[in-house]
């Protein structure tokens, strides 16, 4: 009896030890796998000189909440243009969300860049920037409220068609976080004019009809292409799942919130011809 008990005890001890080893191996395997998965997380970088960069945290949180549901992807907004360009030039398997204006600048020196997705809003892949002000805005000195980077603003103003005359030589920029801030700055007498998208100006008409009616369009830009998602040529297989994830954003609430933060409501895939010409 005692021998049987002893044997049973011995067997139990052996079983427990084996289970323990198996458990440890299992945990190690899980840790190894998760470390491996973490290592394979694909990063999508974002930099947009068309808009202010102070919303990077909310952008990252919203995109990551969407990705976390089923994708091993993270969004990394980048504040500095130089840092972003360094990341692009490294050529690692990643995707880059950028303004078309910026993409066109980079594409001439980096022929391997390939645009895969184009942002749309109300099915439109272009937008206009407007210079908006009160009728008496054209003074000797002008303060323009803007929400984009200085180089981008200068380039837009340079190619703009003006209703009457271009802004005077002595023009100062007041950088604000959002287009609506820029438009309200004119309404409240803090700036003489605002540079804002046509969409934002229309938004003001719904938001603040009285103020909207006191403003007039002083200039209009050429059509600007909306945001583009760019990758490196020959890396499509490594980033295809991330392109799919971006393309499906409009199908979930979190995805739509992320798109909305970029001023879009969907992404559309660019065909090979469109990619080569960079146009649709």
């Amino acid at each position, binding site marked *: 009896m005692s021998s049987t008990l002893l044997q049973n005890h011995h067997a139990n001890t052996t079983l427990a030890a084996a289970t323990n080893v198996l458990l440890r191996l299992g945990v190690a395997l899980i840790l190894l796998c998760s470390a491996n998965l973490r290592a394979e997380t694909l990063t999508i970088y974002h930099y947009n000189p068309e808009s202010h960069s102070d919303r990077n945290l909310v952008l990252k949180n919203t995109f990551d909440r969407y990705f976390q549901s089923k994708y091993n992807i993270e969004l990394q907004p980048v504040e500095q243009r130089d840092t972003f360009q360094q990341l692009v030039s490294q050529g690692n398997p990643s995707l880059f969300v950028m303004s078309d204006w910026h993409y066109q600048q980079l594409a001439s020196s980096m022929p391997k860049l390939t645009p895969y997705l184009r942002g749309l809003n109300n099915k439109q892949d272009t937008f206009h920037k407007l210079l908006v002000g009160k009728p008496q805005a054209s003074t000797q000195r002008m303060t323009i409220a803007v929400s984009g980077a200085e180089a981008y603003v200068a380039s837009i103003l340079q190619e703009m068609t003006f209703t009457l005359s271009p802004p005077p030589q002595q023009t100062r920029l*007041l950088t604000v976080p959002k287009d609506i801030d820029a438009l309200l700055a004119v309404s409240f007498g*803090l700036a003489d004019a605002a540079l804002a998208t046509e969409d934002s100006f229309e938004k003001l008409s719904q938001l*603040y009809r009285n103020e909207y009616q006191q403003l007039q369009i002083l200039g209009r830009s050429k059509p600007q292409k909306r945001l583009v998602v760019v990758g490196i040529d020959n890396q499509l297989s490594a980033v295809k799942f991330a392109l799919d994830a971006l393309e499906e954003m409009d199908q979930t609430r979190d995805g739509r919130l992320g798109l909305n933060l970029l001023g879009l409501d969907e992404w559309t895939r660019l065909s090979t011809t469109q990619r080569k010409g960079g146009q649709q």
Partner: protein
Amino acid sequence: MIAVMRVLLAMFTLIVMQACTSTPTANTSNAHQPKILLVNSNRAIPRYNTAEEAFTEVLTEALENELLISINLENDERPTETLQDILNQHRFSAIYCIGAKALGSVDYIGPALPVVYSSVLNWRKFQNKPGYFGVTSEVAPAAQLAWFKHFFPSVKRIGILYSEDNQALITDANTSANSLSLTLQPELLHHKSDRKPQISRLLNQVDALWVLPDPLILDSEQHTMQLFKLAHTLRKPIFTYNSFFMGFGATLSINADLATTGRQAALLIQTLHEQGAPTSGVQFPAGSSISLNLRKVSDNNLELNIEAFSSVNELLDE
């Protein structure tokens, strides 16, 4: 290794000492040019530092011949003496004060120079003072109301609790609300009244409550918490002017963007140089930073305009 650590420690101590003293720092050393004096109440406070950085960036680009001298009053127990010494040593064309300590100290000395200020809660005290030009701490009430309407189009009737100090603000806000097709329901609170029944009655009559910077309504943490608790119980959203109240459970906050206030202060200095005094002694912040609590949106059964989401800077979900 120990020697390296000692060198690093010495360097660190030196940097900390430089950062903590009120010793002025100038971006160039030309003693004959008129200078701008920047007085920061405490550079260690991020919101003050953000304004200083933005101001310096704009002004350094704009005024090539102008010198900028910056002083930090953090840990300075005799700020007026420090300021007086600097004012005696240099020739200034204007002063920019960030925060109440800086503005109070400069005001105490009363130099015959234009003074520009920001991040000062009691800005109303200085708004009609000759030679003083400032950027307020809160976004214009009209702009706050426009944002409320943009985020929650179904909110039509907004309650406000106020004391007699804010009567003028309520009159202005009413005009703005009318032009936005919103109805304000202001409720005057008296010092000795039992505020709980009055608050509950107001909350039952409105779609949301707008908290203003009122010294009586927000006179203690206990009263502030009581206000938020009553609103939560009745499932009424609270809209505020400062993200501080998101911690109490506010649904939406329209805050001043501090970098923009620094840029506005720099433009005010430029205007003073080029055209003399600006037309208005005080201006509202041109930039906004928006905080939104999605959990409160759902708790209060609010209909969020998805398009407005693109303007959010801080998102909470708790």
